[in-house]
């Protein structure tokens, strides 16, 4: 036991230091993906406790922080899966973009709702610190299901097939939700950040 504790301490994996070292970072990771402060806090706590239970499995192939983030990621996906079917405000419909007013009856753009010209590049936009807040807010305004799949696909770069498996949805449903999320975010950014 003494050897175990010494080993933990000297290799920087002493769990009693985890909160000071990693709690804020884990919390920021969670709050970006979970629209609920209390839930994000709970997930961070669960992450530490799960890590503690499986401490003997930690092989030090990665850093402690990366390992903890991986555990938190799994917890977030678990939460998404459990709550996915309860998200009634975003059920799959025949309208793929979630806003019929964007298009006319013949499927051509409604010129009043059509995309406007953006004068800034993605890099220009990212130079402006407040933009992150805008993007985060726009993300939080999306319907739950769309927000979750967008987060997994575009922020975390998870493969479509993995998302479908984790959330138990078909690929066509995933594409509809992603299209809806992208269109919603595009419009939100245009309205709040690209207005002349």
């Amino acid at each position: 036991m003494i050897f175990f504790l010494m080993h933990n301490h000297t290799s920087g994996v002493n769990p009693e230091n985890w909160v000071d070292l990693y709690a804020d970072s884990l919390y920021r990771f969670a709050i970006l993906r979970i629209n609920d402060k209390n839930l994000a806090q709970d997930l961070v706590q669960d992450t530490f406790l799960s890590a503690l239970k499986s401490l003997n499995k930690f092989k030090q192939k990665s850093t402690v922080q990366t390992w903890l983030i991986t555990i938190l990621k799994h917890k977030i996906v678990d939460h998404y899966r459990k709550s996915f079917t309860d998200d009634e405000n975003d059920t799959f419909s025949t309208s793929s973009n979630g806003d019929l007013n964007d298009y006319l009856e013949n499927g051509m753009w409604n010129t009043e709702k059509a995309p406007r010209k953006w004068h800034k590049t993605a890099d220009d936009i990212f130079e402006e610190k407040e933009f992150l807040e805008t993007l985060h807010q726009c993300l939080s305004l999306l319907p739950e299901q769309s927000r979750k799949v967008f987060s997994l696909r575009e922020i975390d770069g998870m493969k479509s097939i993995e998302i479908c498996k984790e959330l138990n949805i078909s690929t066509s449903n995933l594409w509809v939700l992603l299209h809806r999320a992208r269109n919603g975010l595009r419009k939100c950014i245009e309205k709040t950040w690209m207005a002349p």
Partner: protein
Amino acid sequence: MKKIVHKINMGLMMLIAMGTPSCEIIGRKISESFDRPLTIKERIQIKIHLLGCVFCLRYRDQLIKLHQMASKLADGFEQNKQDEIKLDPNIKLKIKEKIKTHHSPS
């Protein structure tokens, strides 16, 4: 003369766009191109449609920008929010206590 040529060009472009699936379908396929490989037929349809449809062209460019922004969001958020977003100190204490309890050799 220039105006007439411009109008003819615009008309031709409109006709080209009308010969392809609607903007609604093209928009959906543009989004799907980020998630699955499109067929050759779909890619040609999009290319032809974009020749004559400025709105779908903007739509595609905006989705590309959005894709770039989203991939940078996590890192940018972590860096820029380091001083602003922190876990509640009381929650930290609570977690520390729990870790101590679970970790204490007994």
